[in-house]
């Protein structure tokens, strides 16, 4: 098999699985559906490994497979760009997707929409692969929208639930805002570069570095700054960056496997990937980089705060995801693209692990998601306990685990950067370490340690039925006794725990400093020296681990864990007191800074108000009244007039003729 067919196999195998499971789900049954989709993703994963080895051997590919439209000088193509950046993403996507597929067998076992669900997640895998493998903006946009579509479908998977419909509509609308910017950015690229092909655009970018355009009269903007910021607005929507983050917590209405796959490991990182891919453009605009860094820093810190007070286990992880996406964005802003991708990868492993473990807890708790009703689960769910602990340790940056290497590199990169806003970013990501450690271990202690609160929590459980994760009945066992999940559920946890532990140690050196990415990522080391600084201070993974024990982030993390332990294990009465004392501060956090309320009032309410006005003034009055009925009325009046002229008297007719001649004579003679 030649390489091109292999490239094609990667996205097409999941697509085939999705089509079979989606169109023939009824006839192939549940087992058939999961077998065919898992086979598709497995093939895709194995092909990705082969391609990875091929790329490591130095064979990259950039070319069109199919020309869709040629119009003038612009041709719109479907093509692949296979380089080292692409292969990292392909491996991450297919590996996590594979784990999630397997996990879903257990998690969705009682759901009526079993086949539909498998079809969707395979379709998602196809879309995501098309996105990352693209060699042009158009296909990127296709993948971008396709993953958005599947995300929409999956958030609203339980479409009879009011809250799920609300959540998927919200995700859809917020992403529209981002996509609007993204599309404008692509449009500007096409307008000024005359091509949508990455290679051509990147090649031409330096010549347009000093081009400026005027958006409002008299204000000249650097063209590349405008393009980069517009593209980044797209990334803000997809990667849930402040202030377009509001859809992600609500997306937890979807089943847990997709929270892991789409809303933690892959789709939400599409924005990060996109910016890294566009590094040759972003490197040319310091303004855009600063913008990226500040947005990322705000997201990293302030979304972390929100995680500290959540009681829904999935929401804690969701805010953690927001915060970590902020970290990646900060790394992008500091020109440490490879660090961002590195963190993307490690985060994909441990965050998918955390989500799936949370899902396992939810299964064990019979679909109760409130961590206040848990406690002491350690002895009932040992595998889940161990894997979730590993995931949490990786997340907070325990030296030696994967999260440590990627996150510490981000923190160091912000210190090395001297762009506008890097000081704030450095503060935010450092302080974020404490916050991360606190909310992670707050959840950990509440779930696995302490008193077993689930015995007397069932009244509350029933009342909060709306928060339950599904509609199907409780399976097996006595009501209230947690139990370890079946092997299809815990196997993916173990599979994901492995890279969560070692991926950082093993890959930091080649990925960050070993010129792994080669030409795939472009950094202007003269202007943005974060990466070279990092390389200068890096003396191997072991040294970095040892050195970390003496640095601030490590002790902040320890302090976070200790605080959580003290508050939730030792002085259990304190959190409630603090909550009452904090007053306004707590309210602000509880209201999530009021974004939802503001958006509902201003955007949703405003749009409806505007729509109502436009309907009344624009549609009813202007269009119906003036243009449609009005023009008809005008025509009618003229018609009546024209008929009125026809009096029937012959002298009127003769007079009209004479007048006509007289008019013609007046106009044309003289």
């Amino acid at each position, binding site marked *: 098999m030649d390489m091109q067919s292999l490239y094609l196999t990667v996205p097409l195998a999941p697509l085939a699985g999705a089509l079979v499971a989606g169109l023939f789900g009824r006839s192939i049954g549940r087992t058939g559906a999961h077998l065919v989709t898992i086979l598709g993703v497995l093939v895709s994963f194995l092909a990705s490994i082969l391609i990875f080895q091929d790329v490591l051997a130095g064979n990259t590919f950039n070319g069109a497979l199919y020309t869709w439209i040629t119009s003038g000088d612009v041709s719109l193509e479907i093509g692949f760009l296979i380089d080292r950046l692409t292969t990292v993403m392909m491996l991450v996507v297919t590996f996590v997707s594979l784990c999630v597929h397997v996990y879903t067998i257990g998690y969705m076992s009682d759901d009526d929409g079993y086949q539909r669900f498998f079809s969707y997640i395979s379709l998602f895998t196809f879309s995501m692969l098309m996105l990352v493998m693209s060699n042009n903006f158009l296909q990127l946009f296709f993948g971008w929208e396709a993953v958005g579509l599947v995300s929409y479908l999956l958030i609203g998977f339980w479409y009879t639930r009011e809250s799920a419909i609300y959540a998927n509509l919200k995700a859809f609308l917020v992403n529209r805002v981002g996509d609007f910017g993204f599309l404008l950015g692509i449009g500007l690229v096409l307008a000024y570069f005359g091509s949508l092909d990455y290679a051509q655009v990147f090649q031409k970018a330096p010549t347009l570095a000093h081009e400026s355009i005027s958006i409002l009269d008299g204000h000249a903007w650097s063209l590349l700054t405008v393009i980069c910021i517009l593209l980044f607005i797209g990334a803000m929507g997809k990667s849930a960056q402040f202030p377009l983050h509001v859809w992600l917590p609500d997306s937890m209405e979807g089943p847990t496997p997709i929270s892991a796959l789409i809303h933690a490991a892959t789709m939400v990182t599409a924005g990060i990937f996109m910016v890294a891919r566009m590094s040759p453009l972003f490197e040319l605009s310091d303004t855009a980089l600063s913008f990226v860094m500040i947005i990322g820093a705000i997201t990293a810190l302030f979304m972390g705060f929100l995680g500290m007070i959540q009681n829904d286990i999935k929401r804690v992880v969701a805010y953690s995801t927001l915060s970590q996406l902020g970290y990646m964005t900060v790394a992008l802003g500091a020109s440490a693209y490879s660090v961002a991708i590195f963190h993307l990868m490690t985060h994909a492993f441990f965050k998918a692990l955390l989500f799936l473990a949370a899902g396992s807890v939810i299964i064990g708790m019979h679909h109760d998601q409130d961590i206040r009703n848990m406690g002491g689960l350690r002895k009932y769910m040992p595998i889940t306990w161990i894997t979730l602990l590993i995931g949490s340790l990786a997340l907070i940056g325990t030296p030696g685990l994967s999260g440590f290497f990627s996150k510490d590199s981000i923190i160091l990169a912000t210190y090395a950067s001297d762009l506008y806003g890097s000081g704030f970013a450095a503060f935010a990501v450092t302080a974020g370490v404490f916050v991360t450690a606190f909310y992670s271990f707050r959840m950990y202690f509440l779930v696995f340690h302490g008193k077993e609160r689930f015995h007397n929590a069932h009244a509350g459980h029933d009342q909060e039925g709306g928060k339950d994760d599904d509609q199907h009945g409780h399976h097996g066992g006595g009501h209230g006794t947690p139990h370890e999940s079946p092997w299809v559920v815990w196997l993916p946890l173990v599979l994901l725990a492995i890279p969560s532990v070692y991926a950082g140690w093993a890959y930091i050196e080649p990925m960050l400093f070993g010129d792994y990415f080669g030409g795939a990522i472009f950094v202007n080391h003269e202007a943005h020296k974060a990466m070279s600084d990092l390389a200068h201070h890096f003396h191997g993974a072991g040294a970095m681990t040892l050195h970390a024990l003496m640095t601030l982030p490590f002790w902040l993390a320890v302090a976070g864990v200790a605080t959580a332990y003290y508050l939730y294990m030792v002085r259990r009465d304190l959190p409630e007191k603090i909550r009452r004392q904090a007053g306004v501060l707590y309210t602000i956090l509880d209201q999530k800074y009021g974004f939802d309320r503001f958006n509902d009032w201003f955007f949703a309410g405003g749009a409806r108000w505007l729509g109502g006005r436009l309907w009344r003034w624009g549609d009813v009055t202007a269009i119906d009244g003036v243009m449609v009925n009005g023009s008809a009325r005008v025509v009618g009046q003229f*018609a009546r007039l024209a008929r009125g002229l026809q009096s029937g008297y012959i002298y009127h007719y003769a007079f009209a003729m004479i007048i*006509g001649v007289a008019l013609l004579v007046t106009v044309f003679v003289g």
Partner: protein
Amino acid sequence: MTYPLPDLLPALPEILVLTLACVILVIEAFFKDAKAAYVLTLLTLLGAAGVTAFTGGEMSVHTFNGMFVDDAMGDVLKLMTYLAAITAVVYSRGYLAERGIFKGEYFALVLFAVLGMMVMISASHLLTLYLGLELLSLSLYAMVALHRESQAAVEAAMKYFVLGALASGLLLYGMSMLYGLTGTLDLAQISAALREGVSSPVVLAFGLVFVVAGLGFKLGNAPFHMWVPDVYHGAPTAVTLFIGTAPKLAAFAFAMRLLVDGLEPAHGDWQQMLAVMAVLSMAIGNLAAIMQTNIKRMLAYSTISHMGFLLLGILAGTFAGYSAAMFYAIAYVLMSLGGFGMVVYLSRAGYEAENLDDYKGLNSRSPWLAAVMGILMFSMAGIPPFVGFYAKLTILQSLVGAGLVWLAVLAVLFSLIGAFYYLRVIKLMYFDAPHSTGAVAAEAGDARMLLSLNGLAVLLLGLAPQPLMALCANAMQLSLQ
């Protein structure tokens, strides 16, 4: 003094028609056999068609001292005139018989009118042009008044006659100015004289205005259109059918002979006059048609707007424009034959199917007739794939080609308004409940068959307009050299 006998061969069709028209007069006077006159009329027209086709050639032949020309454009238009006349006569037979006017006079008048049209079509001299015009007009006046018991018909005839006389006066006055200016009545010589330059542009402009006014009256263009609705309405429907069809071809020929053969060098002047008339015609025709409740009046106003459209092709002043206008004239005659033919066909003794309400629910009474009428209305509105669409399209193309985009835009706008009243007929036929549920008077199988063919022709020429377009373009090419 000897008069050499002129070459009679090019005028053979005219001579044939004249002779046989006289024969019909004799038959009417001595035998009162209307049936024989009917058959003889059809045979005459078929014979004339045969002779025209036989004597026609690619060359333009002049005779009668250059007063008469036999050329390709003339041949095509004459053939179409025979076709229109034959169709009209066949459609009219039942209608006339039921109203007691199925007489030899009618057929004699038809043949004299056709003769007048043929002379107009073949005229290459102002005198012949006027002669043909008057012969046609006088025949038509008499035809309108044929139904003597009908007050409306007599009134219409009176109006038509008085206004027609006025128009003829205007036309003659304009012609006299042209004669004064150029010293000749021969169209080719007028053209040559104008090309050399004239002593007084004012006189030329005066002459043009009056000539164009006369032309506008014959075509029925605003502001010289007032006679059209009243005459179409008042005349017996069978006569309306005749007036509304074949004479339009003659009027087109008249315009071509006068404006293009004779006054081509003054194109810049008459172009603007025609533009004014065209826009006014489209506006008044389409707007007033909306308000009509009588389908004959509605079609009369529709005729006015169609003639405005026809002028657009001529005023473009290009070869493409002339052949587009010719195509339009032929297409219009076909559609109009069908439209008025349907009114004639649906009218029975003591009942005229002339109100729009009479068409309510036609589909439930006779789906086939409703379908044919539907085709005709769609075509008149200019909706593809019917011939009316291509007729409008070629005119618009020629306008844009001549750089007159604003006229094309106006034409499209007015066509859009016009679509309303055509579509209303379709709505009435298909979506409204009929007044009476009885079957449609369905005798006269030949008329019904011809009507169906008429409708199908409109559809087929719309699906494959190319042969007819090529025929028009070819004839125009040969005639204009």
